[in-house]
């Protein structure tokens, strides 16, 4: 089944069946993880930890939920995705390539001079990237702007965004949270990739995020909590957001570095590329999983 442009949501899940859906999406996730490790390994720099933690979220969006046309990236009715935590760019690039926005060969030129794949997402260079991000705390505001713009023109498209937990320390996140709550932006759904680690250590040791669901609820958002590596749970939750009366936050509990044993929960792999040996080891591990 080609999910792209199909009737989304429950109909797909119903037609495909839960186990077939799980099998299909998990197989894509495995491929994306392989891509991510290889891209960063070949580039010699990048952010593997936070790229691996959000694989299922992006795969569920692009291969289950979102209405989009890889052959027509500027189709006005497309659903939008904003990667506010722009350092997870490798995951976005792999997903875009696998959806058909550009050839997968491009992936191996990540971060090289002249590549369409910059270190952080660049809407002018990469088909399918909706807005350039990288400086944290700005993508959610941009997503609010998209949701407001779509609402003004009665465009039924929906806007999805992904923020990080370290990123949630940026004040701009909460400015956006307040604006979206005030305007009851029911066409906006954000995920929090809650992997609990940031560059300087565990978030709770750097600056605690407190009661995250309560914070978002108090800003007027509907809040769900999911296992961020369970594709069926993510899809079912995404379907619930179609009927939201305001903005939705899905707090996805994830594992930083997920899928590569020596990267899981390893603070160092936030912004460190694997060595060539580590890369081979990680790729084998993913292939055998």
């Amino acid at each position, binding site marked *: 089944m080609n999910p792209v442009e199909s009737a989304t949501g429950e109909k797909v899940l119903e037609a495909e069946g839960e186990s077939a859906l799980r099998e299909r999406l998990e197989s894509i996730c495995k491929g994306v993880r392989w891509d991510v490790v290889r891209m960063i390994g070949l580039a010699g720099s990048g952010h593997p930890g936070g790229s691996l933690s959000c694989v299922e979220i992006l795969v569920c969006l692009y291969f289950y939920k979102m209405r989009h046309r890889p052959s027509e990236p500027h189709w006005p009715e497309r659903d939008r995705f904003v990667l506010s935590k722009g350092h997870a760019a490798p995951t976005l690039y792999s997903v875009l390539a696998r959806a058909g926005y550009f050839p997968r060969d491009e992936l191996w030129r990540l971060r090289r001079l002249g590549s369409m794949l910059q270190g952080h997402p*660049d809407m002018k260079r990469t088909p399918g990237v909706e*807005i350039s991000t990288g400086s944290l705390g700005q993508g959610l505001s*941009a997503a*609010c702007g998209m949701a*407001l713009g779509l609402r003004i023109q009665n465009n039924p498209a929906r806007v999805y965004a992904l923020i990080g937990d370290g990123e949630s320390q940026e004040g701009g996140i909460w*400015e956006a949270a307040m604006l979206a709550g005030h305007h009851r932006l029911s066409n906006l759904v954000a995920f929090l990739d809650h992997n609990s680690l940031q560059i300087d250590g565990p978030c709770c040791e750097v600056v605690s995020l407190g009661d995250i669901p309560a914070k978002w609820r108090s800003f007027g958002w509907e809040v769900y909590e999911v296992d961020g590596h369970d594709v069926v749970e993510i899809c079912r939750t995404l379907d619930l957001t179609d009927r939201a009366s305001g903005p939705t936050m899905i707090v996805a509990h994830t594992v930083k570095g997920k899928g590569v044993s020596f990267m899981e929960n390893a603070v160092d792999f936030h912004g460190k590329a694997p060595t060539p040996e580590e890369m081979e080891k990680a790729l084998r591990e993913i292939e055998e999983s």
Partner: protein
Amino acid sequence: MIPDKGSRHTRDAYAEALLELGEKDHRIVVMDADLAKSTQTEKFKERFPDRFIDCGVAEQNLMATAAGLATTGKIVFASSFAMFATGRAYDQVRNTIAYSSLNVKICATHGGVTVGEDGSSHQALEDVALMRLIPGMRVVVPADYYEAREAVKTAAYVEGPFYIRLGRPKFPVLFDDDYRFQLGKAVLMRPGRDVTILACGIMVYNSLVAAEILSREGIEAEVYNVHTIKPLDEETILASAAKTGRVITCEDHSILGGLGGAVAELLSEKLPLPLQRVGIRDQFGVSGGVEELMEHFGLTPGHVAEVARSMMRGST
């Protein structure tokens, strides 16, 4: 004599232009950050409430949200005071708006020491410099009501980001209702042979008054209104400088990085000549009345004339 056409607020011109644009183009969306009464975007809000978004006191969010709106095909005007639009939200303007050449027109009011009594925290003296540093940003500092109105209308239909700097006080009116604004083209306000005065914003009027004073002493100053700081009208500036051999820049802004900075860069590379920059001399602002502050920071016509005299004497 400079004809007396009264004085008007450049921010009223902004409001008038927005109403005209909003009437004929549904893509126009206006945003503010709790200063709609001061920036005058309130008038657009009253007429087109569905296309006005107040972000509250959150300038960072204002700019990044404006960027997102622009991706949906809107022509977005985003307003606040110059201090907060450029300083508070610099990262958002640089990385989310300008890096992707998004169609956001930042129209900031209350630029310069002429903000007056509110003092240093509200007197943006570096805003033009900050915006000028960003690749692809167009920077315009209108000299009067009509120029502000036409610059705003022009910005709406030139694709990509703009920074338009408006003032708090009324500016003397220099032009008429039929004024045509040309982006990137300096306007000759008064021909002369002895010294070139390049001015923007409220300093265009002060420079014209200075030129009158000088004329009575036999010094003929050539005065240009350099409303577009970026892209700078290099050709016109170099031609006038080559003719007079002396250049003075005048702005209600730091002498670093704004019009004076831009002209210094140009002349030192292409036509090294004596240059004096009138403006705020690497200082913070201070509370006071507008006239008092102009005197305090050396922005008066008398001061501009004195700078020209000393250049003529060759003492600077």
